[in-house]
């Protein structure tokens, strides 16, 4: 039970401003003084109106965006690493083993089939192709992607199908920390429920989750605590 109580992610005084050089060096402050902690087995839901910087915050935690100041402390293989100051190689290693991210949209790769796309993270980890494919099939079934589509590249899939492939691609691996950006946005009820189940399974295994969910039902089904980005900004 010790595992459940541990902090996995500590965000400390994060500040992000975009500086647009080609528009007269316009400064666009997004947030500052953002701090929170997430423990293993917790799901922190980021709330606040559209445009308050929730996705930007999530991307900053993934080191996809640079921050002006603050710390993104990640428990990586039982050591604390600050992603905000880590080297590119450390960031890549953390993303490979510890930190998973489901973006809003799937990035399709030409000529790569759905099944290969989904098991790619496992292959990169050194897992053999056969068991990796087995795992991918199980997950695709669970997310109701028809078997007839598995060998096709997902470029021509519907929005909901692409989103489920995107979820499968990240959830196939047991990341200790997960960042989810609207994973259920364009899904029907059945698929939404399947995704909720997957998220809760991960959480019960001890995954620390930070997510954005606009749907109140999803929020209440998976969230264990809330963090209002808008209020945090006002308080700052």
């Amino acid at each position: 039970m010790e595992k459940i109580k541990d902090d996995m992610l500590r965000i400390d005084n994060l500040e992000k401003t975009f500086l647009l050089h080609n528009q007269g060096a316009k400064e666009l402050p997004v947030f500052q003084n953002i701090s929170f902690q997430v423990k293993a087995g917790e799901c922190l839901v980021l709330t606040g109106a559209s445009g308050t910087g929730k996705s930007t915050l999530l991307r900053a935690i993934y080191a996809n965006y640079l921050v002006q100041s603050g710390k993104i402390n990640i428990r990586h293989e039982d050591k604390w690493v600050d992603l905000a100051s880590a080297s590119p190689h450390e960031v890549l290693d953390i993303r490979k083993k510890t930190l998973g991210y489901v973006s809003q949209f799937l990035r399709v790769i030409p000529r790569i089939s759905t099944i290969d796309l989904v098991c790619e993270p496992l292959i990169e980890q050194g897992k053999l192709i056969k068991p990796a494919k087995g795992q991918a099939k199980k997950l695709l079934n669970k997310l109701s992607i028809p078997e007839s589509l598995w060998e096709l590249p997902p470029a021509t899939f519907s929005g909901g199908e692409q989103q489920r492939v995107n979820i499968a691609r990240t959830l196939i691996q047991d990341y200790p920390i997960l960042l989810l950006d609207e994973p259920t946005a364009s899904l029907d009820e059945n698929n939404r429920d399947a995704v909720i189940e997957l998220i809760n399974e991960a959480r019960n295994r001890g995954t620390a989750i930070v997510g954005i969910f606009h749907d109140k039902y999803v929020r209440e089904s998976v969230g264990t605590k809330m963090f209002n980005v808008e209020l945090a900004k006002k308080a700052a």
Partner: protein
Amino acid sequence: MTKVLLSAKNLSHHYGSQVGCVDVNFDIYPGEVLGVVGESGSGKTTLLKNISGLLRPSSGSVKFDTRVDGLKDIYLLSEPERRLLMRTDWGIIFQNARDGLRMNVSAGANVGERLMAIGARNYGDIRNEATDWLQNVEIGLERIDHYPETFSGGMLQRLQIARNLVTKPRLVFMDEPTSGLDVSVQARLLDLIRGLVSQLSIACVIVSHDLGVMRLLSNRLIVMHQGRVVEQGLTDQVLDDPQHPYTQLLVSSILPV
């Protein structure tokens, strides 16, 4: 962290009063793909030539982790030593495949030649290996004895890749490997490069002005402008949250499909 494979320090190159590249510094680690982007004339190809032993830089050093002696300055090696390095541990994929192939010998011989250069002597083994590699790069086996002259542009580029990778180099330099090919051929080639590089865990330096290619292939990105490195970092971070004015301009100039 694993040790550095290639290290460029304070690298500058001048063509008379013309600037090639200025004060470039970076390290490459085993198995990683480093992208170099920038507009034409920004010094990308000069840099690539400097670090691949093709062009001695005006100043600065290029060190490579040689198998026997560890990190050594490649321009302080003797000519035969450097040649050996280029034949064994390195591969160079030229933008124009004709520069990297021998056009007057067959496709199979183009691949086999590099094996012979590292000491392979058994004809059957060489032929088998060449056959395997032509299959890896999706060239039909009925073409093994044909001259490259009869190949299409995309096939020439794939043959060049087979010729370079057959000796399992530790580092491959690629100069605009997909430019000049139509998009479907380009996608096929990218898929191939992507697969081979990760399977064989080869380190790569890829020069291109195509940011889409970079996002697909590279782990890290260097942005060059007027001969200088203006920004470097994780590929997705540089493309999604560019910091330097030139990079912001570059990224915002992409036409969405």
